[in-house]
């Protein structure tokens, strides 16, 4: 394994048992995240972004089954760890920031109480202090220091507040402060700014980038906003129907998208910075209970060929770009693979 790699996800398959049948949410997801990089996970609703994030933290709901795959985090195979071993990683080495802080923050406790809890349960340094008063002092100092780092206005006042008393932007700052306070190696941020106004979003993203750089933290930024990824990430993975159909540097993918789905997404995007004719992608997303055979995108793809309807495209590496599409596979598109 390459030393600079913090996370490796390989051929991850996740299914949900539901009354409608088996929902094939992830159908072989593979990607890597390097140390200190911000990796963007893009894709439309239902494509499997959140499930991927949850699977890495082993936080999938009870009706989910990991059918296959490997998740290697910092040299450890997460899927083979016992729950108590995973507990030592989750919330410490891997932390999370969610779109809706309410799923994470408890409405009946003040911010100070919640932050204190996190530090007491997870921070080794604080846990090693013996004297009770010293502990409280260390906790307090740490909270104030983190809140100052996230440029929280009036931190001493904010820690006495309850979650509902904080504005959306302040809540996300709080989440970032909590997520970074334990110096994790990886942060999974699932739509952290989607609910915010653009002016506040810009502040929060800027803040996240600077903290990430300062601490060398790796971040998986999950968002459906291709603009947010362009401005925050070094690499992007584009998900469709539970697969990452294209991966590459932001520079290369945005300037020359290879996969027809990525191309379609880029063309469908109205722009605030220029006048552009947009074109939607016809059809609708596939039913994950009854996936089409072959390439999952073929029913909507304007360039689909005979083989696309029959055989799932292989994962190709084209000068460092990862693409799953028959168009770029010399062998299959010429019909040599049956």
């Amino acid at each position, binding site marked *: 394994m390459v030393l600079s790699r913090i996370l490796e996800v390989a051929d991850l398959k996740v299914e949900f048992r539901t009354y409608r049948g088996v929902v094939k949410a992830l159908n072989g997801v593979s990607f890597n995240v390097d140390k200190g990089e911000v990796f963007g996970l893009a894709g439309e609703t239902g494509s499997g972004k959140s499930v991927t994030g949850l699977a890495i933290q082993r936080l999938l709901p009870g009706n989910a089954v990991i059918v296959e795959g490997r998740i290697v985090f910092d040299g450890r195979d997460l899927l083979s760890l016992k729950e108590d071993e995973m507990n030592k990683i989750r919330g410490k080495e891997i932390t999370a920031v969610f779109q809706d802080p309410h799923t994470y923050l408890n409405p009946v406790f003040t911010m100070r109480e919640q932050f204190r809890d996190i530090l007491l349960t997870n921070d080794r340094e604080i846990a090693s202090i013996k004297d009770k008063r010293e502990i409280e002092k260390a906790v307090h100092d740490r909270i104030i220091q983190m809140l100052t780092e996230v440029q929280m206005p009036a931190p001493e006042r904010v820690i006495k507040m309850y979650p509902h008393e904080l504005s959306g932007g302040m809540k996300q700052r709080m989440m970032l402060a909590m997520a970074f306070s334990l110096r994790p190696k990886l942060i999974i941020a699932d739509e952290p700014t989607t609910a915010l106004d653009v002016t506040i979003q810009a*502040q929060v993203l800027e803040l996240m980038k600077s903290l990430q750089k300062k601490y060398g933290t790796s971040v998986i930024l999950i968002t459906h906003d291709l603009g947010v990824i362009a401005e925050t990430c070094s690499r992007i993975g584009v998900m469709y129907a539970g697969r990452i159909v294209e991966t590459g540097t932001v520079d290369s993918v945005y300037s020359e998208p290879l996969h027809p789905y990525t191309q379609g*997404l880029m063309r469908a995007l*109205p722009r605030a910075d220029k006048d552009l004719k947009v074109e939607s992608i016809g059809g609708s997303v596939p039913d994950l209970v009854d996936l089409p055979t072959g390439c999952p995108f073929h029913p909507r793809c304007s360039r689909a060929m005979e083989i696309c309807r029959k055989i799932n495209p292989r994962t190709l590496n084209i000068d460092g770009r990862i693409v799953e599409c028959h168009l770029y596979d010399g062998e299959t598109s010429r019909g040599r693979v049956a």
Partner: protein
Amino acid sequence: MGAVSTMRAEKTETGDDVLVRVEGLRKWFPILGGVFQRTVGYIYAVEDATFNIKNAETLALVGESGSGKTTVGLMLAKLEHPTAGKIFYRNRDVGKLSSSETRWYRKRVQMVFQDPYASLNPRMLIKDTIIEVMKVHRVGGPNYYDRAVELMTRVGLSEEHLYRYPHELSGGQRQRAVLARALCVNPEFIILDEPTASLDVSVQAQVLDLLKSLQDEFRYTYLLITHNLAVVRYISDRTVVMYRGIWVESSPTRELFGRAEHPYTQALLSSVPIPEPRSNVEKQLLKGEPPNPTERVKACPFADRCPYVMPVCNEKTPPVTQINDSHQVRCWLTVKK
């Protein structure tokens, strides 16, 4: 095209082709408190909304969350009663309509809400929802069904979709069904509150193009409420920017994106993430937090976050500066120039 527009111009009695005129519209929601549930304060949702909407144009209303956009829409749809100010529709004071005129108004003016689920009854077939609306408004009879089919085609769906429940439609289809429901009473003016916010980008484009083509064909007038500036640029003719319930800039959309005058508009435009690598050369980051709606604005609503704030900004409301015939701004900076 030419013939149609002359016909409409004659219909609008005003001669200047203005369909809706909003003057100093205000909405304060009382905060009740104490044992006697007396008014202890107000949420100053809308302080001053002033604009015109011309026939068959799209006016975009933008601004951050809580700036009062939806409340303005609700007042225009006569679903909220203004605290002050006036709405004129075809030069008629909407506040003074008789009950029969109000019925007429409610047909002419339709509002489409962000959440398509909220506007469609989950237990009713699309067919029954649409026919019920027609019956209530007494339009489209006696061949309700034929008209429902015609509407479905108009919004790019088919007869088959009439026999579906809302949850059996995709997001884009559901938004089209909501549109069909709004169109079934033959409106002229449609208030679209975040019409594509719940849609994925691949589908959003379809709905935006549909709105455009319906407007070309049937000359609907739209008020587009949104915080998505890319959508604003794509489909609107003119834009009004609101901050803390007060309009701060009003301009043809094209011009606004080229030369925004108000510091808030500038910050807004520069905050939009651009889907292009290395596009984030210089962002104009705003400091501070969104404002508290229970505090009344006394001077410039943007003063506490404005990078160019001057003493006068905290003292007096900036007057309206006319940049040109169609572009107005309220900011002390432009007054000084």
